[in-house]
Structure formats: C-alpha cells, structure tokens
C-alpha cells in the first residue's frame, strides 16, 4: 500500500516535471533540440582542424620488409630501410605501435583491430621489397633492367574523419621526405653525372596507396559517425542542464517546499526528478537518432539494449552532476548559469565533433576522463563498427563507476540542501 502510494507520488512528480519542459517552447529548444541544432550547425561550419604536432598522432606500422623476396633471380631478405623507416617515424615524434600483420577488425593484436577500436589513427604497411626498391635494385627483365617497385599501404580510421585526415597528411608528408632522402643517397652514389640526372627523372620506386580501413563492414559516411557521437551532447544538454535546474527551479518557486510539507519523503521527490530527467535524455536521444535517420539517412547498427544501457549509465553521471549543481546553487538562475558554464566547454572535449587526437595532451587526458566521452566512444563503436558488447566493457565499467560516484555525491548535496529550506 505504502509502496503503491510512493510509486504514485514518484510518477506524479516525474510527469509534472516533464510537462514543465513539454509546455515550454524555450525549454524544448534548449533541452531537447539544441543538440540537433548544434549537430547541423557544427557539421556545416567545421570541416577539418589542423595540427602540426606529430606526437598526438598514433601510427601503427606493419613492417614486412626483411621477408625473403626474389630480386633479379636471387633471394633478398634485406629489411634495413624498413627498420630505418619505423625508427625515423619514432624519431619524428609520432607515437608508433608495431604490428606483425595488418589483419582484420575482428583479430585481436592486428593493426586493423586497433584501428577499429580507435587505438591508432593510421596504419602503414611496409612491403617486403621496400629496402630493395629504395636501394634501386633491379628486377630481371629481358632486354632491360627495371627498378624494383614497392607500394606502401596506408590505412586510416574512417570513424574519426578529421583526425584521420590530419594523421594521413602528416604521414604522407613524412613518407615523401623519407623517400626523397633515401633516393638522394642512392642517386648520389651513381658515378656518372648523366646517369644521375637520368635516375633523378625516372626513379620513383615507391608508390603509396591510401585506403580507409574496414572498421564497419559496410560503407559509412562522416555523418554516420557524428550522429552516435551527439548522444554525448544529449547527456550534457538534456541530462546535465535539466537536472541542474530541476530542484533549483522548484526551490525558487516554492513548489519544492510544498512537496516537502506533503507526506512525501525527499527521496521520493528525488526519484521523481530522476525519472523525469532520464525520460528527457531518452526523448532527446530518440530525436537525435531519428533525425539522423530521417534527415541524414545515417547507416548504423542498432544494438538497442546496449544503446539503452549505455545512455542510462552516461545519464547517471550527467544527472548526478546536475543534482550537485541544483542542490548547491542558490536559485534557478545560478543553477542555470553554472550548468551552461560547465556544459558548453565540455561539449568540445567529449569527441562528438572534434577528435580528441587533435587536442593538446592535457586536453586529451581531460577529455578521456569525462564519462560523456566514454559514451561517445561506446556509441561510435557499437553503432558504426558493430563491435560486440565486450568491446565497450571498459567504457561501460567507467561510466558505471563515475555514474555511481557522481550520483552519490549528488544525493549527499541534495540532502544537505534540505537544511537550507
């Protein structure tokens, strides 16, 4: 009986709170539609952002140079320049991860697997004949000697278009300089000046092939990656912002005091507010995803239970943080200002629009520590790459822990605020 009454009270509070948004056009815009507005505006305004600092670029190398190949009728196993290439990447301050094979997105320990999980932005496959090509060895061909040609394969991460373009451009620049350097050494060793000039014109032993890694299993566009990322914005705008003013508004208007003087426990009020905030987050998420489908025809994977769970865990942190603001702020206006002050800058650090990889190291560390970033990562992995639930376990665990901590602190702040009535 008592439980039934409490449930009635919780849903009455949640419904009333929800109506407060639903019947207020300004609130509808800022709480539910602003992330969508932001998606469209940012999408058209910002294309690529640049950086010259290579240490932020995580490069995977698959060095096949040194594997035995046939050159001019003899077996060559020289991997000197391939090794030098990897070492030069490191010396150029790229963050280099070495792999034995490129593999595929489902095989752990391969470059393709790490690209699909965002561990590296670009993978360079150094071919077996890399040294031979750059040292101008010749294949045996009837009538004339043909220089050995090698092809460097470059794979980029399409789920982070901006970050990938930056990484790709940096690597291409590096490759060009590296090849030019080694060609120079070999050409300068040619004694005949006329032959040297001839070699300079003709020698082009390395080509570079660039392609996007298969991380999804189906063709994806930039917007396909962006839409799942905006769920992080939903947490900030619909979760954090609404939760921040939920209690403060009621306290300012006196309706909170009126609820407390009724036979309603403060925890019941809190539960009602939580359900309402959660409902607003889910409604906003549905609007974002539906807009993605209807406006942008996004091509995503729909693992609904995982998406619902991930949003719930992310919302725990957003609502917990909002609850802290709502409880500590003096009034509705103060709560609103604090929420905006926090949510506006945070949206640039969660990797929804701008890849964290282009940011300074400190910003990357800060961004990675945010539970909202974890939701963005998890959603991009699930919805664009169709990774299994286990692949996002680190994000799930992180969001659970941060959600529980923030929500617990929120409850403590809420209880303390009751003393100020």
């Amino acid at each position, binding site marked *: 009986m008592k439980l039934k009454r409490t449930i009635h009270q919780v849903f009455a509070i949640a419904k009333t709170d929800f109506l407060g948004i639903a019947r207020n056009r300004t609130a509808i815009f800022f709480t539910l539609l602003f992330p969508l507005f932001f998606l469209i505006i940012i999408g058209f305004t910002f294309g690529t952002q640049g950086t010259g600092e290579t240490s932020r670029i995580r490069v995977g190398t698959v060095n096949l140079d040194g594997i035995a190949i046939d050159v001019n009728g003899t077996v060559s196993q020289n991997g000197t320049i391939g090794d030098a290439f990897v070492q030069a990447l490191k010396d150029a301050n790229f963050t280099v991860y070495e792999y034995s094979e490129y593999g595929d997105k489902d095989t752990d320990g391969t470059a393709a697997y790490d690209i699909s999980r965002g561990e590296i932005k670009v993978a360079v496959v150094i071919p077996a004949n890399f040294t031979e090509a750059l040292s101008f060895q010749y294949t045996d061909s009837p009538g004339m000697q043909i220089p050995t040609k090698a092809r460097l394969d470059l794979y980029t991460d399409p789920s982070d278009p901006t970050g990938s373009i930056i990484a790709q451009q940096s690597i291409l620049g590096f490759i060009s300089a590296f090849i030019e350097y080694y060609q120079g050494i070999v050409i300068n060793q040619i004694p005949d000046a006329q032959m040297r000039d001839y070699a300079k014109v003709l020698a082009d032993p390395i080509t570079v092939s660039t392609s996007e890694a298969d991380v999804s299993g189906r063709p994806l566009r930039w917007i396909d990656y962006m839409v799942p990322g905006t769920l992080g914005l939903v947490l900030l705008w619909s979760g954090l912002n609404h939760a921040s003013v939920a209690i403060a508004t009621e306290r300012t208007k*006196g309706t909170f005091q*009126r609820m407390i*003087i009724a036979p309603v426990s403060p925890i019941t009020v809190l539960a009602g507010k939580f359900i309402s905030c959660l409902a607003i987050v889910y409604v906003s998420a549905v609007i974002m995803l539906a807009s993605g489908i209807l406006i942008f025809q996004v091509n995503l994977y729909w693992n609904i239970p995982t998406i619902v769970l991930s949003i719930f865990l992310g919302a725990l942190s957003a609502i917990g943080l909002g609850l802290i603001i709502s409880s500590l702020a003096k009034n509705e206006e103060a709560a609103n200002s604090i929420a905006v002050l926090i949510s506006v800058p945070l949206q640039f650090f969660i990797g929804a629009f701008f890849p964290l990889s282009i940011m300074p190291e400190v910003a990357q560390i800060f961004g990675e520590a945010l539970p909202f970033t974890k939701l963005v990562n998890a959603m991009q992995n699930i919805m664009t790459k169709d990774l299994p639930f286990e692949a996002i376990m680190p994000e799930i665990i992180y969001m659970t822990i941060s959600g529980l901590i923030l929500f617990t602190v929120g409850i403590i702040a809420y209880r303390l605020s009751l003393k100020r009535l």
Partner: protein
Amino acid sequence: MNLNDIEVNSITKRFEDTVAVDNLSMNVARGELFGLLGPNGAGKSTLTKMLCGMINPTSGTINVGEYNIQDNPMKVKELLGVVPQDIVLYDYMNARENLAFFGKLYGLSGGKLKNRIEELLKFTQLDEKAVKRHISTYSGGMKRRVNIAAALLHEPQVILLDEPTAGLDPKNKLALWEIIRTLHKEGKTIMLTTHMMDEAEELCNQVAIMDKGKIIALGSPRQLIRKVKMENTITVVPDKITSKLIEAVQKISGVKSSYRAYDEDEKIETLKIITKKAEDILPDVVSAISSVGTKILSVELSRVTLEDVFISLTGRSLREEEEQL
C-alpha cells in the same frame, strides 16, 4: 481525548548565533481560529516551518493531533493543510492538473481524487473555461483561491495559513476572509500567521503576538486589548507631522503615548494618540496642534486595536519594525 490540535512545548530554534524561536510554548485548541501575529522577523515563519515539518527544532517538542512531529512526521503532514504565503502552483498547468498533482502527493487517486477536485473547483468559483487555462493566465485572486484549494484536497483537520491576504486588493481580501470563516465553521482548526492586526482582530478567536522569537501576549483580541488597559485612540490627520508636533501632543496631561502611523487604506500618514480619556483631552489636542502651526485635516476617535496592543507591549509600531527589516 486531546482537545488541542497543536501543542508546542518549549520550542527553541537556533540558526548559528541567532535564536529565531526562543523557548516558546502554546496550544491551539480543536476548532479554534488562531492568529499568530508579529512583525517580519518575529519568528512566525520559523515556527510555521517547524509545525509543518520543514525544519526541526533545536529543542522542545511539537504535537499535531495525537502525533509528535519528530516521531511521526508523515502522520502529522497528513493532518496538516498548509497554504503558503506565495502562490505555489505550477503555472504551466491548469487548476485541475495542479489539484490532481497535489492530491496525488497526499495519496489520493482514482474516483476519490476526481470527486475531491470537482468539489474544490466549485470552492474556487472558477468557471469551466478558466479551469482549462494555465494558472499563468489567472488573476491574483483566482490563483490565491486555487492555492488554498491545493491545501484542502486531503481534507486536513488543521490548516496553516501563512499571510493569506498579503498583496490582495480589499475586495479579494474580504472574499478570502469569507473563505477562512467558512472553513472555520466546518470545524477546521486554523492557524493564521499575519502581520496585519486588523485581519487577526476580524477573524481570530485566539491570538498570540510574537516578538523576537517569543510570545509576548496570548488571548482573545478583546482580552489583549483589555489587558493593556487602553480604551481609545485619537487619530489625527494633520497637514504635516513633525517631531515638534509629537512633542507638543505628548506634553498634554492624560496622553499615554503618541506616534506616527500610516493608514494603508487611505495611504496617508496619521498621528495616533493613546489615552484613557479621549473626549476630555480632545480640545487640548486641537489647541496643541494649532500651537505648532499645523493644520488639522481630520480627527477621529477610535477604539484600541491589536496594533496599539503591540506598541504598548514593545514600544514600537509594526511599521517601524518593517522599515528596519
């Protein structure tokens, strides 16, 4: 059987160094319309908050009905209907939706809630069109009536009204007084906090005057007036009130006190002269006022009010108190 619906025993409430309510005791009998009077800052709001369980006393006990509020806060809350001073309603919902929400908080549901809402909508005298409109479109009087109705949904035995007519025009004020009288006739125990002495005098059959966290007088309005042994007030409206004028009047034999007051209804400053023999000293008053070069616009003899009682007890007028705050 307990004949008191409210029993306050040696209640003290401290906020750090401030004592808002100081060892206060009082009872409100069942069916009584009890007025809690005092200037802003007297401790009325703190006492009301403790009575409805919003804050806990530092020491002392409060019983409402048969329940101790510290031991059974939920039971006490079910007995109480609290009408806050401000309009505390959701302005984006209509009257029916607001009443439904507050009814659910008190555990009402289904047909019972529906019937009670319809009863109270009649009580608010809102027509069907108005009922469907959002509260934000209502006049002050309409909002005030819905505000009261929201506290009556669960048919509470004890009703706390906090400054119920604050900010209302005379017409709406009288209409609200009528509602309070009706509730009293229905047998409800009503505690009314106000700083308007005329309101308490008009409505209450028992009055407590609070000042600085203590009750400084308790009784029926008539008893309180008799207690301070004052019979009359001469109210003079001069063209200007100067300290020289007050001094001249004060010197007249038989004048107990004189002070500047403000007539809220007429919006004019008046000079109040407290005396036991108003008719006898009236000629002296007129000549004293004329002697300082002040013109008399009107003179009125009136009986002593609760406002005069407060002044007699504290040496300060309520207006002075409000100006200081």
